[in-house]
C-alpha cells in the first residue's frame, strides 16, 4: 500500500480512538488527502467554548513535507489571517518534522490560540490591536468566537440583535463609529478606516480626528 495512504489512514483511525484530546478528523470529499479537522477553543482564552474547524490538505510528499492547513472558522488572532484563515506557524513551514502528525499539528494550533505571537503576525491589523489594548482584543476575539465558532452566549447575541454587530467584529467602540458616521460618512467606510488606523484604546488619543477624516476622504 502507498506509504502516504497507510499513514493517513492510521492517523485518522488513531484520532477516532483517542477520546481525550477532543480532536476530530473527517473527510471533506472522497479523497483521504483532503480533510477537515476540528478542536475546541482552549480554556481560559477568549476562544473558550468555540469549535474551530481547519481545512487540511495533505501534499504528495507528506509526511516529508508539511501539511497545508488553514482555518475554516473565522478566528480573531494575530497569527491567523482574519480574511483567509491562513496560519503563521513554524511547524507548518520550515520547522516541520515527519514525525509530527495531523493530530499533533492540530494540538499545536490549539496551543497557538493560547499563546499568540504578535511579533510575528499573519494579520498585522489584528496584531496591532493585540499589542495596543489587550482587553479590547480579548473582547473582540470572544465576540468572534461567539458568532463564528458557536461560543457561549451565541443565542443571546443573535436573539438580541438578529444581525451581527459589525462594530464589535471590527473590535471598535460604537461611540467612535457613531461619531464619524455623524459627520456624514457611510458606516462601513468608517469601520474600515478606524480598523485600519487601529482606533482603539490608548491609540485613540494618538490619532487626531482630522487624520481620520483625511483617511475617510481618501478611501
Amino acid at each position, binding site marked *: 500500500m502507498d*506509504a*502516504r495512504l*497507510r*499513514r493517513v489512514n*492510521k492517523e485518522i483511525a488513531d484520532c477516532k480512538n483517542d477520546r481525550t484530546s477532543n480532536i476530530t478528523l473527517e473527510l471533506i470529499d472522497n479523497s483521504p488527502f483532503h480533510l477537515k479537522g476540528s478542536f475546541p477553543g482552549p480554556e481560559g482564552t477568549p476562544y473558550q467554548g468555540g469549535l474551530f474547524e481547519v481545512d487540511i490538505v495533505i501534499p504528495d*510528499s507528506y*509526511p*516529508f*513535507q508539511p501539511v497545508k492547513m488553514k482555518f475554516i472558522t473565522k478566528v480573531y488572532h494575530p497569527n491567523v489571517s482574519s480574511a483567509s484563515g491562513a496560519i503563521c506557524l513554524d*511547524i507548518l513551514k520550515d520547522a516541520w*518534522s*515527519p*514525525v*509530527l502528525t495531523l493530530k499533533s499539528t492540530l494540538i499545536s494550533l490549539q496551543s497557538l490560540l493560547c499563546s499568540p505571537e504578535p511579533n510575528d503576525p499573519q494579520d498585522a491589523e489584528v496584531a496591532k490591536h493585540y499589542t495596543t489594548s489587550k482587553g479590547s482584543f480579548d473582547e473582540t476575539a470572544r465576540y468572534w468566537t461567539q458568532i463564528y465558532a458557536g461560543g457561549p452566549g451565541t443565542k443571546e447575541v443573535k436573539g438580541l440583535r438578529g444581525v451581527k454587530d459589525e462594530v464589535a467584529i471590527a473590535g471598535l467602540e460604537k461611540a467612535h463609529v457613531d461619531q464619524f458616521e455623524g459627520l456624514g460618512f457611510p458606516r462601513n467606510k468608517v469601520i474600515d478606516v478606524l480598523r485600519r488606523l487601529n482606533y482603539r484604546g490608548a491609540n485613540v488619543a494618538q490619532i487626531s480626528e482630522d487624520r481620520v477624516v483625511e483617511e475617510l476622504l481618501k478611501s
Partner: protein
Amino acid sequence: MSDYDISDNEADYYDSDEMMEDYQNDDDQDEDDMEMDDYNDDFRISAGSKQKSYEVDYKSLSQSSVEKTMKEDVDHICGIFGVEPAIASLLLRHADWNKEPLIERYMENATKVLVDAGVAIPEPVAEPTPVRTHHSVDKLSTGSASRRSTRSSSKLLSSLTSPTRSSAQKSSFSSPSSSSSSISASKSRTKDKLSEEPEQKSFTCPICFDDSPSLKPLSLICGHPACSGCWNAYTVSKIRDEAEHCIRCMTEGCAIVAPDDFIHDILLSDAAAPPDSNPDDNQTAWVRFQELLVRSFVGANPKLKFCPYPGCTNTVSCPAAASKSVLTTMVPIVSCGAKGIPKDASAAAASSSSSSGVTTVTTTPPSSLYDKEHVFCFGCPIESDHRPVVCAVARLWLKKCEDDSETANWIKSNTKECSQCQSTIEKNGGCNHMTCKKCKYEFCWVCMGPWSEHGTAWYSCNRYDEKGGVEARDAQSRSRASLERYLHYYNRWANHEQSAKLSIELYAKTEKKMEDMQITSSLTWIEVQFMRKAVEVVERCRSTLKWTYAMAYYLAKGNEKDLFEDNQRDLEKAVEDLSELLESPIESENIPVLRQKVTDKTVYVQKRNEIVLEDTATGFQDGRWRWNVSVDGFEEPPEELMVN
C-alpha cells in the same frame, strides 16, 4: 556528548596551535599559487599579454576543482580536530566554511561546537560525575566498538545497537574503524548505525507505520529510528524540493545532521537504499546534493562566484573583486569559460520524457554567435558585460528602466487629477472648461478651481497668475524636462541593444550567403571569415555604447563628462560606419575591396572601444567621475551637481 575530556582538549590545543601556523603559511602559499595560475590561465579573455586597465584577473574552476578545494579544507580540519572527514565537513558547513572562527570556537568549547553543528547529541542537563570519569577512561581505548557500546549503555540506543547486528550491515554504514585517534571524541559519532531489531521485537516505522518484518530500522547517532524507505523519501524531498544540504534527523526537535556518507548510502548503496525507490531520482538527488554543497562553499567565499547561466556548474575565482569596496574602482567582468546553454540541460528540460539515446534536435539557430560565452559580472547580479559603468550605477540605471517611475513621470507631465474624485485626466483638446467623466465635476484646467467661480460668459482663467498656479506649472515643466532627459538616454541605450540583436540576425543571413559563395567562387573559408569577426566586434562595442549612455545619464556636468561624451561619440560614429559596411550588398567581385574596408574599420572600432574602456576604467581608479545622484560607495555629490 559527555565524552569529551579536558586533558585531551589540552593536548589537542597545542597540537593545533602549530597547525594553525602551518595553516597560515599554507594560505599565503595558496594565494601565490593562485596568482601564478592566473598568469597561465587559458580562460582569460585578454587578447594581449598585457593586462588592460579595464580587465580583471580571474580564474574559472570546474565543479570538481571546487570540490577539491573543499576537500582540502575538510582535510585541514580533520588534521586539526582529529575527526573524520564527514564530521569535519558538517562542522565547516555549519560554520559557513569559515575556518578560523570554527577552529577558535572548537578550541574554546569543542562539545558546544559539535552539538551546534548537529554532530553530537546534547548532553543531559545534569551529568553525574562518575559518568564523566567513565568516559575519560573510555577515551583511552581506541576501538570505536567499545565506545559505541558505552554510549548505548547510557543513551536510548540500546535496542538499536544491540550486538545482534550483523557485521555485513555494519560495514555498509560504518567504514572500518580507522587507525589511531588520540581525540576520538566525536569519531565514533560519525558511524551511522544500520541495525536490525532483534527478531522477536517487531519494528514499526514511526513515519509510515509500516511493520513488515523485512523492515530495517535506520537511525543517525541520535538513535531515532525510521525505515529506509522513509529516510530515502525524506532525503530526496529535502534535496529536491527544498534545496537543503543540511538533512536533519526526522524527529521533531532533534538537531542531528546526516553526514555525507549516510546520504550517499541511503540514496545509492545497494544495502541501504530501499529497493522500491526510483534509481533515477536517487541519482539526481545525489548529484544535486553535491552541487548544493559546492554552492554553499562558493556562496560562503567572497572570492568565488557560481556561474549564473542555467545548467552551468562552473565557478569563477576572482580574489581582486572579493570586497565590495573595490567595486567603485573596477568592473569585474568575468567568464566561466563555458559557452552556450549545455545541450543536456536544455534537452533534459525540453524532452525529459523521451528515452535516452535519442539525439535531440535543438531548436536554436545553428549560428555560432548564439553560443554565447558565459560572461557575467562578479560584483553584482547582472548577467552580462556592463563595462564601462560600475555596478552601482548600472544597477541604478536598470532599476530606473525597470520600475514604473518613468510611467509615473509621464503621467505627471501629461495629466492632472480631478480635484473632486482624484481620477487621472489627460486633456486631449478643447477648451479649459473640463467636466470630469466620472464625477461630473466641472473645473478649469488651468487653475484646477471649480468652473462655477469663472463666470459663464468668459472662457479664460483670471486666476492664472496666482502663486499656486505658477508653482504647479513649474513643477509640471520640471518633471517634463527630466522625463525628456531620461528619454534621450534611454532611447539611445535601447537602440544599441536592438541594433546589436539586428546585426546578429543580419549576420546569420550573411553567413549563409558567404557559405554559398565559398562554394561558387574561388574564395576560401578563411577569406570569408572577416564578416564574422566584424559582427562580433560590433556586438561588443554596442554593449559598451549601451552602457555609456547609462553612465552619461548619471555623470555630473563638467569637463570630464564632455570628454567622456567625445569618446562616446567617436566610438558611436565608428560603430555605425562599420554597421553600414556590414549591410552593403555582397557580390563576389567586390569582396576583396569590402574585406579590406571591413577589416580596417574593425581594427579602428576596436581601438576606439578600447579607448573608451581604458579611459573610463582609469577614471574610476583615479576617482575622476562625479555623479549627479548619490551612488552607493561614492561620495555624496555636492548640491549644485545634483539632478532630480
